[in-house]
């Protein structure tokens, strides 16, 4: 179990199983990057690299509306996003452009979100991903955090969270 304990979550609010989500995140990295790819590991178990993991500049999210309403949010460093996009698009990390970062992290949150949606009561609908680069964290009014996984990939931070909305979430601007 690598989920961060969340205070003040009402007992009636149910979130996705953290171990299952962690497994899915690992499967996504392997599926995208190939069988030999490293899987994200719990952050506490990640090797300490001075200066690494200090920034969380990319936010990607999807929302679910329906029988269960909520959001799945991924936050990561630019370095992680750049490394992921570089390996996906087979370009050197210093040549990765923002569109490639948005595409790579957007697909990551899309697949995590779709699998979280499947774990929760349905029927429901998944939005397209929204990705913010160097922006403020998305404001999710009234939502209660039900899951937080603090992971690390290539010594860079990767946070996965799910949020249960108190009412059906509204449409958002889509970035793809």
């Amino acid at each position, binding site marked *: 179990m690598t989920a961060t304990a969340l205070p003040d979550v009402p007992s009636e609010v149910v979130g996705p199983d953290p171990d299952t989500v962690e497994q899915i995140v690992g*499967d*996504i990295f392997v*599926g995208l990057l190939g*069988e030999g790819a490293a899987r994200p590991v719990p952050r506490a178990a990640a090797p300490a690299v001075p200066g690494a993991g200090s920034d969380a500049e990319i936010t990607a999210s999807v929302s679910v509306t329906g029988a269960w309403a909520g959001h799945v949010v991924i936050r990561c460093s630019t370095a992680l996003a750049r490394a992921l996009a570089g390996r996906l698009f087979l370009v050197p990390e210093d040549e990765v452009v923002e569109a490639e970062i948005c595409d790579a992290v957007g697909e990551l949150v899309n*697949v995590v979100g*779709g699998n979280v949606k*499947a774990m929760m009561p*349905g029927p429901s609908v998944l939005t397209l991903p929204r990705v913010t680069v160097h922006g403020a964290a998305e404001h999710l009014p009234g939502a209660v955090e039900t899951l937080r996984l603090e992971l690390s990939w290539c010594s860079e931070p990767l946070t996965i969270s799910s949020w249960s909305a108190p009412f059906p979430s509204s449409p958002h601007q*889509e970035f*793809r």
Partner: protein
Amino acid sequence: MKALVVDDSRAMRMVLRRTLTTLGYGEVVEAGNGREALDALDPAALPDVALVDWNMPVMDGLAFVGAVRADAMFRPMTLMMVTTESEQSQIVRALAAGAHEYLIKPFSPEALTDKLALLGLLPMPTPGTDSVTSSTWSAS
């Protein structure tokens, strides 16, 4: 053999293209949504298989499958949904709309290979040919 990959994520299109190329597909074409895919389909040179995401802007994968199945000219083309939509009800919807197979993301190359084998859509390896013709209809 020829494949069509319909997904709004360029990253996913690249992942699928790599696997298809490794399997021996000689031509892999891409579209960023269902509308682009429909606009570019040539009845005289249909792909053997289309790998179709569900959640896309403009025209989603389910609408694309429905449109393809409504047109007899496109009937020879095999349709496989490749999507994060994994609820049983969604799978039933896609198959009822005319999809032949369903692959849930995340997937491994082996899982895609197995599905294509089930459909009889694994190209036979041709010794001495390693060139791949590719074209991109639109990159979103």
